[in-house]
């Protein structure tokens, strides 16, 4: 159905119980504002397999970035992590729930930068304009790897040459404003990877870049991932990038994961109606310019609204009255190692529905005009 070129990948990996670098369980993040409480992350559970890349996709405001920041315990005020576990399985260390560390504690700071690195959406503003690239990278190395300045400089030079920046020695004394956006993002990647972390949180790192630069940045990330052997949690809303980069994908909607599956499985047989709608809304080459691009009906409910039942049901073409608007589905395994949170795939008691029943229901729903989008051509 979807024709996005992607490199062949291995067998779909399961997240449940597998060898994960990080396991997020039932994470809740709330923002208490004067207008009310926003539940930005509402019970997210996900795992990033070791050495692999997990894509986290979803529309703006669905909580994907907040999840990444919550893993670092860097949610901006007035955001508070109210519940959940973030278990880090660092190489050669016992698993530890990061949320048992206080936000500003030495233990938490020893994890930031050292075991988990982070890169951001806006390379133009992610580096401090007052300090040289060399200074900013060496700062992280001096915190975690060595106390010797000469050694830190040498390490900085090495990582700078690894991200494919020309004349790294000159970059040591270069200020961020003297670099282009793509070069800054490379410098930022060098900074995040300077301490060879177990996990890289990439918060839409290519969104602000043009397509050519985007491809180069993705190449650099893949190369370094192999070199360091780290995992990546790749937050994006670009499904094309997901197809290129990721082994696993978690689809988020309104602060919850609605589906997590291997990238092949997700693109070949998306299960959740939201995922299916997302796939249909990707523009396709050769579909003719007269054809209208499919959109997901309706819009995201207001951030303060509280919805009964499945969060997607008001926009869902397959919503089953009496079930979806009453009960809240949970993320459960559904064949082939994927997990999905939808009553089309489980009945409310939690037992899986037969694939035939699912197909039958989907067909009857489409036949009844559930999906009211005009078809191309």
């Amino acid at each position, binding site marked *: 159905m979807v024709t996005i070129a992607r490199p062949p990948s291995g067998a779909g990996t399961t997240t449940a119980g597998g060898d994960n670098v990080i396991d997020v369980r039932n994470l809740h993040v709330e923002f208490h504002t004067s207008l009310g409480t926003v539940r930005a992350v509402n019970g997210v559970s996900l795992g990033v397999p070791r050495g692999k890349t997990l894509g986290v996709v979803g529309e703006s405001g669905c909580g994907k970035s907040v999840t990444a920041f919550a893993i670092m315990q860097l949610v901006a005020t007035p955001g508070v992590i109210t519940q959940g576990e973030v278990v880090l399985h660092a190489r050669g260390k016992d698993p530890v729930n990061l949320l048992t560390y206080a936000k500003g504690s030495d233990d938490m700071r020893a994890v930031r930068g050292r075991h988990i690195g982070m890169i951001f959406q806006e390379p133009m503003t992610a580096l401090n304009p007052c300090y040289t690239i060399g200074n900013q990278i060496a700062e992280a190395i001096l*915190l975690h790897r060595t106390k010797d300045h000469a050694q830190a400089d040498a390490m900085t030079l090495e990582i700078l040459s690894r991200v494919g920046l020309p004349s790294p020695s000159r970059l040591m004394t270069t200020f961020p*404003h003297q670099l282009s956006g793509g070069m800054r993002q490379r410098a930022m990647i060098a900074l995040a990877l300077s301490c060879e972390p177990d996990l890289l949180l990439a918060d839409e790192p290519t969104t602000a870049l043009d397509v050519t630069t985007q491809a180069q940045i993705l190449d650099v990330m893949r190369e370094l991932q192999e070199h360091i052997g780290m995992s990546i949690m790749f937050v994006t809303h670009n499904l094309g990038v997901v197809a290129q980069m990721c082994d696993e994908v978690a689809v988020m909607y309104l602060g919850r994961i609605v589906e997590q599956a291997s990238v092949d499985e997700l693109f070949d047989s998306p299960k959740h109606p939201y995922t299916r709608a997302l796939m249909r809304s990707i523009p396709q080459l050769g579909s003719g310019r007269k054809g209208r691009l499919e959109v997901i009906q309706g819009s995201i409910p207001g951030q303060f609204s509280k919805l009964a039942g499945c969060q997607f049901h008001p926009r869902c073409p397959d919503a089953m009255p009496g079930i979806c608007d009453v009960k809240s589905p949970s993320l459960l395994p559904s064949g082939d190692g994927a997990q999905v949170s939808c009553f089309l795939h489980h009945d409310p008691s939690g037992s899986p529905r037969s694939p035939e029943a699912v197909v039958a229901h989907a067909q009857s729903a489409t036949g009844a005009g559930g999906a009211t989008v005009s078809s191309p051509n």
Partner: protein
Amino acid sequence: MITFLIRRLLFMVVTVIFISMISFVLIELPPGSALDAKLQQFRSRGLNVTSDVVKSLEERYGINDPIYKKYWKWISHAVYGDFGQSFYLDQPVSSLIGSRIWFSIGMSTAALLFAWLVAIPVGVYSATHRNSLPDYLITVMQFLGVAIPEFLLAIVLMFIASWYFGVEVGVLYSKQYRDAPWSFGKLLDLLSHLWLPVVVIGTHSTAWLTRVMRANLLDVMGAQYVQTARSKGLGERAVVWKHAVRNALHPLVMALGATLPALISGEVIVSIVLNLPTTGPLYVQALINKDMYLAITFLLFLSILLVVGNLLADLALAWLDPRVRLE
């Protein structure tokens, strides 16, 4: 950088020349002259001043010369350090100012340092503890500090200092040091008297700069690079002081050019109230008496101070922020 400096210095000279011309004209504009005041002095002593005497005096002092001639007469000597004679005080302007200007410069500098040393830490505290009780208290103090007139603050502090603490106010030295030669003891004595005027002069700027610092830092704390610094594993203190404050200082340094005139005019008022031997009271006297050369020389020195202060602010900015450095 060198060419930039030379260009700036040339511009400074041109600026000062223009300021001197404009202020010369402005001081000349009101009717009457210093001679009138002098004649008044003579008459009150019972001397009979005939119109012939007036005429010869007017001629001697060039009272009725055209303004450009007067200006040229003054400026052509001023470049050699001869700023003319004070009509009213019968002393060379250079010696009148020379004995006082260092106090003014010293006091303004001290007030500036005081303002910065207080405003930066307080502003940082206020911003990092936003919406807490101390932050509210600081905010109230800031508004008070901006709102309260300097002369009132001077009087109140003077009263408190002399009534409750028995400090001698309105002087710069204790009796035993007044005519003593310079020594370490005299310096300490000077400093112990100096804090009061410095606090009074600096209060307004301190309050204002604290406000600016707080707002800037709140802005900067939301910047992405602050999150980057945190994501490296830096402690909050390093994040705030190394990464945020340096960026938040930028507008503060740019405001230096505006802070200096405020400090200087504050110094004039406070010195009059506290009766300090700085340039302030002398300057006001000179304006009242139309003591032409004294007044214009003050203005010249003030404008030189301002342009030099602005140059220093620009250099500080270049040191602080690599983006404004010239290649």
